């Protein structure tokens, strides 16, 4: 067999597939065959590169050329120019937004320079549907080492020494969690992988499962050996069909190679993994609710203790870890706890994957060492705020987290700093907001989410959040009073103190943190009946400046509710009782005559 001279990696993550990366792959293969190059060039469907903003991504190795926003029609020119003639296709290269220069090589892109990929090590590098590629990148070596050269306790000690903490949000030390489960008596035990990723805008776990499923299988097996379990369960939401598909393929391949099943690698240890599908309820990311859902009961949380380590799935000792936590395990075993502990900040070791979303130039998936500052993430990796607007806040930790502002930009990101700043790490969603976002509306958005997702078991969460939402709604409609603001604060505190599970206990966080950081905006809404971001429509009035209006009639013709009247070449007027505040008139006006008051 001839050696391949080029490898073309095409992103096969959910994001890029939605933009027809499958079509790109098909066309690339066709073009190669037409030129009889199929033995010289290998086309690989890879996991997510993280640079979703510019997807679909096509990367050509060995020269590291990074093509962005590729369409299936571009396949011909890539083969003809790049592969046959050795000339890069300039128009498909990434353009640096500052210098306006084409950057051909991913190593020179600001997006990648500050990143350190541990959990995402293989994402965008291997074909996730091919176990051989994973093995060539050390997959299952850590498992072999643990099974044959280490005792369960020594492996647990290694994880403890590494300082790894749960990546699902809580930040509980992983090694300690394993130790508790291992010491907990029980004839049967279970390892559960929590892949019920539910924060709005978060897709870290999905990308890991889609890009490197073998790392999760390997880590769960290691965990099984450490705690004495023989069955692993992946609780994954049914909305992640591609991740499920790839995971199933990976499981089959691992079984075929004997890396799952009986007597793994001749160690005498047996382990297998099953999938459990969730219906996408947010609360099922909470471990007790998750376990109930797997048992076939309603996905409702129960009081802890007993912790799952003592009585979990089917009342047996159960260890639940998040996908990203598992993804760090094999590399810790392979490279050693010291290596892992040397990365990151004092109390938070290693790296963290974040899903960057919102008003940021480079929307995508990133992984940075703990201790990286928000400024580095937002401006250097994220490429700054879209449209050159002013940064206002970044929301971390999803519906349980809070907003961080300008003054927090230089805070090194780790578990403790984020909590001290009034937010939390959470699973890693980061939503960036600019001057056009109204913080009261943002708080309302998150409350809408928690009201929708509350399981309804306890009153503080079921009723309390509903009331919080009603008050916020009232404020955004310009009907709020100062008393409402006091009620918001008090009610939030009561819910935090009395709700049953993590969902309820943290659901008022977006309200409290926006009140803390953007008190002025709340007061403006209540006292001045004004929304500075121009989001709360009921408070806005579109008014035509008679000085500037030339009577071109364009606004009147575009108004969907005919609220604008006036003679040709004379100033027009908006009837406020009819206006629905859609803003169409303002967008259309060529003379800047329409103002928001």
């Amino acid at each position, binding site marked *: 067999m*001839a*050696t*391949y*001279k*080029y*490898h073309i*990696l095409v992103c096969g993550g959910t994001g890029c597939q939605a933009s027809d990366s499958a079509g790109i792959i098909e066309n690339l293969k066709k073009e190669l065959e037409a030129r009889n190059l199929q033995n010289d060039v290998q086309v690989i469907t890879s996991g997510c590169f993280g640079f979703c903003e510019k997807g679909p991504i096509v990367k050509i*190795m*060995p*020269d*590291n050329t990074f093509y962005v926003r590729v369409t299936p029609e571009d396949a011909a020119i890539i083969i003809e120019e790049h592969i046959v*003639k*050795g*000339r890069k296709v300039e128009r498909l290269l990434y353009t640096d937004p500052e210098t306006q220069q084409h950057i051909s090589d991913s*190593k*020179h892109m600001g997006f990648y320079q500050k990143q350190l990929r541990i959990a995402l090590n293989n994402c965008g*590098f*291997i074909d996730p549907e091919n176990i*051989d*590629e994973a*093995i*060539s*990148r*050390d997959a*299952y*070596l850590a498992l*072999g*080492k643990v*099974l*044959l*050269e280490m005792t369960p306790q020594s492996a647990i000690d290694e994880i403890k020494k590494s300082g790894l903490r749960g990546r699902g949000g809580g930040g509980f030390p992983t090694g300690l969690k394993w130790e508790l489960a291992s010491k907990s008596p029980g004839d049967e035990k279970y390892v559960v992988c929590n892949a019920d990723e539910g924060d709005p805008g978060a897709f870290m776990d999905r990308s890991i499962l889609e890009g490197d499923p073998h790392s999760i299988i390997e880590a769960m097996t290691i965990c099984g050996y450490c705690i004495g379990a023989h069955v692993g369960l992946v609780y994954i939401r049914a909305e992640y069909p591609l991740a499920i598909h790839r995971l199933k393929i990976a499981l089959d391949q691992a079984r*075929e*190679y*004997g*890396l799952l099943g009986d007597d793994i*690698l*001749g160690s005498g240890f047996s382990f297998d993994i099953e999938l459990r599908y969730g219906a996408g309820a947010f609360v099922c990311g909470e471990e007790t609710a998750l376990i109930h859902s797997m048992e076939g009961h309603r996905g409702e949380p129960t009081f802890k203790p007993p912790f799952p380590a003592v009585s979990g799935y089917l009342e047996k000792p159960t260890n639940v870890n998040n996908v990203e936590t598992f993804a760090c395990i094999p590399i810790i075993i392979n490279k050693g706890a010291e290596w892992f502990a040397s990365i990151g900040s004092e109390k938070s070791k290693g790296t963290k994957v974040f899903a960057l979303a919102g008003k940021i130039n480079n929307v995508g998936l990133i992984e940075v060492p703990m201790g990286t500052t928000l400024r580095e993430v937002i401006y250097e990796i994220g490429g700054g705020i879209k449209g050159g607007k002013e940064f206002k806040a970044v929301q971390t930790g999803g519906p349980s987290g809070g907003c961080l502002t300008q003054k927090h930009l230089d805070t090194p990101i780790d578990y403790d700093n984020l909590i001290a700043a009034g937010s939390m790490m959470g699973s890693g969603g980061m939503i960036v907001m600019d001057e056009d976002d109204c913080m009261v509306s943002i708080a309302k958005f998150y409350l809408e989410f928690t009201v929708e997702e509350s399981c309804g078991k306890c009153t503080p969460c079921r009723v309390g959040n509903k009331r919080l939402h009603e008050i916020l709604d009232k404020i955004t409609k310009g009907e709020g009073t100062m008393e409402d603001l006091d009620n918001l604060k008090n009610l939030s505190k009561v819910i935090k103190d009395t709700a049953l599970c993590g969902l309820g206990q943290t659901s008022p966080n977006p309200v409290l943190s926006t009140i803390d950081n953007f008190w002025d905006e709340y007061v403006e809404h209540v006292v001045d009946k004004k929304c500075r971001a121009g989001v709360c429509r009921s408070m806005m009035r579109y008014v035509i400046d008679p000085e500037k209006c030339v009577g071109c009639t364009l606004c009147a013709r575009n108004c969907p509710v005919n609220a604008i009247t006036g003679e040709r070449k004379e100033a027009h007027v908006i009837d406020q009782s009819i206006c629905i505040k859609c803003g169409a008139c303002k967008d259309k006006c060529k003379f800047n005559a329409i103002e928001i008051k």
Partner: protein
Amino acid sequence: MAKIKSLDDLRKVKSELQDKIKLRENANNPESMVQIKVGMATSGIASGAKEVFNYLSEELPKRNIDAIVTQTGDMGYCYAEPTIEVTLPGQEPIVFGYVNVTKANEIIEKYIKNGELVEGIIPKNYKSVE
């Protein structure tokens, strides 16, 4: 494929599979590799650059040399085609002209392996923009 029955087995499988992905691994650390660019514009190809490119990309792995072989456009030395640019780790690039398969072999054996210069060096008259 048969089951992997022991850790040694796994290590063996891994080392067998590694070559298939080597090209990508190397590309991740270009600075520590031998980098070769083969000028493959029309004049280069007409003079046999394709054979040289194929020869280099097949021979180097066989001789256990970690290298990145890419093609590039016209380097401007059409009188001396095929031309190749060789960059050893940490060194300035050197351009060789009139490279055929025999010459390529000599470049591998003498320059790449031992750093000995061989005949056919063309003074570089261009700068690359990184």
